């Protein structure tokens, strides 16, 4: 029940007598509505984490690479010479 999944904001509209910003968020094919009330600075094109119909966080693009860079950063510990072949392609970094 604590599932929260990231998706991309496709459009934003106003509801509840224009007091509430709602977004259409696409999760790889499925589109669902999510409230943007907790993310005033989220806009079309942003990736957001959605939980029970509410967007709770923007995915931070710079930070998103850290999991892939972490092993390289601590690479001085061991022989990680072939780490590159396991890393996803670097485009978009």
């Amino acid at each position, binding site marked *: *029940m*604590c*599932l*929260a*999944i*990231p998706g991309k904001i496709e459009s934003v509209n106003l509801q*509840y007598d224009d*007091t*509430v910003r709602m977004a259409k968020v696409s999760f*790889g094919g499925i589109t*669902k509505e999510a*409230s943007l*009330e*907790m*993310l*005033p600075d989220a806009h079309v094109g942003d*990736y957001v*984490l959605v*939980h*029970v*119909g*509410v967007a*709770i*966080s923007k*995915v*931070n*693009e710079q*930070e*998103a*690479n*850290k*999991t*892939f860079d*972490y*092993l390289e950063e*601590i690479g001085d*510990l*061991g022989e*990680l010479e072939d*780490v590159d072949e*396991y*890393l*996803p392609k670097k485009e*978009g970094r």
Partner: protein
Amino acid sequence: MKYMKEYRDPQLAKKYLDEIKRTVTQDWTIMEVCGGQTHSLVKNGIIEMLPEQITMIHGPGCPVCVTPLNLIDKAIHLALDKNVILCSFGDMLRVPGSRMNLLEAKAKGADIRVLYSPLEAVKIAEENPEQDVVFFAVGFETTAPANALSVIHAHRKGLSNYSILASHVLVPPAMKAVINDEENQIDGFLAAGHVCTIMGNAEYYPLSEQHGVPIVVTGFEPLDVLQGILMVLRQLEADKTGVENQYSRIVKEEGNTEAQKMIFEVFEVKDQMWRGIGEIPDSGFALKDKYQAFDATKKYNVEIEEAPEHPDCISGQIMKGIKKPYECSQFGKKCKPTNPLGAPMVSSEGACAAYYHFSGLAEK
């Protein structure tokens, strides 16, 4: 942008496992707090792949599992005996109450609706002015803003037929209770990433310092949990304790301050009963006086006698990480996801259900 499937890359997972093996020199016990992480660890076979020096124990992090039995009985009572449309998240439906579960109440004619979001419950209340709508608002800090928001919306619209049956549980006080339990030996924690998304990391610094345990705020994909384990391990092996954030693509140090505002507009902290564990001080949310009219327990004032748990169910020890599901005499025998005796067998984030589905330990 990398946002989901990239964190499931098996090759990179192997790199992480190799690095974990290279780093470990002695026995360590690490608790993952959140049921979503338990699910990920068991489902992806990570537990078996870790070096044997590392023991993962599974924490109390499943709100469905810790919602008090008495509150489930209350929800069933409201749905059956009052003119109430009871709305709930799907995974509450098969959690055993003392006489029946919500699904069985539905079969007996109760109007019980499974919703994806509490905001839908407000719409239902608006569309059915002649009926009362109660939302069964369970959840951790992650879910509290959405539940609070439903109350704010209902308040704004002046709806008098909407209320919530709240069972909110807070994670850091539970971590403290688990550390202080003498039967437990925990060397380090993976903290629940989505809880921190809302509340930030501040509460973990004193916890880490006072108890001398590394705490790493961790996500849910296989690479997230592996990186989290490696980060805890590196601290342990270097004899350090501190708070680190593995899940920085989602979790900001200060959390989501808008969401916090929403929560504390509606709720205040109170002591809370955890099913299987008992009362933990300051570990829940109650509606503030201003929003009392939306509190289902006050509105209906139902007193329901406390009922005992199934005598064979050791869910309390499971949720405190003292025992593993397969150590329960009923695991996979009388207790199965189709016929759960205790809550951890119900939700896919409950430790018993995760082991049942994925570990191959249960005879199906």
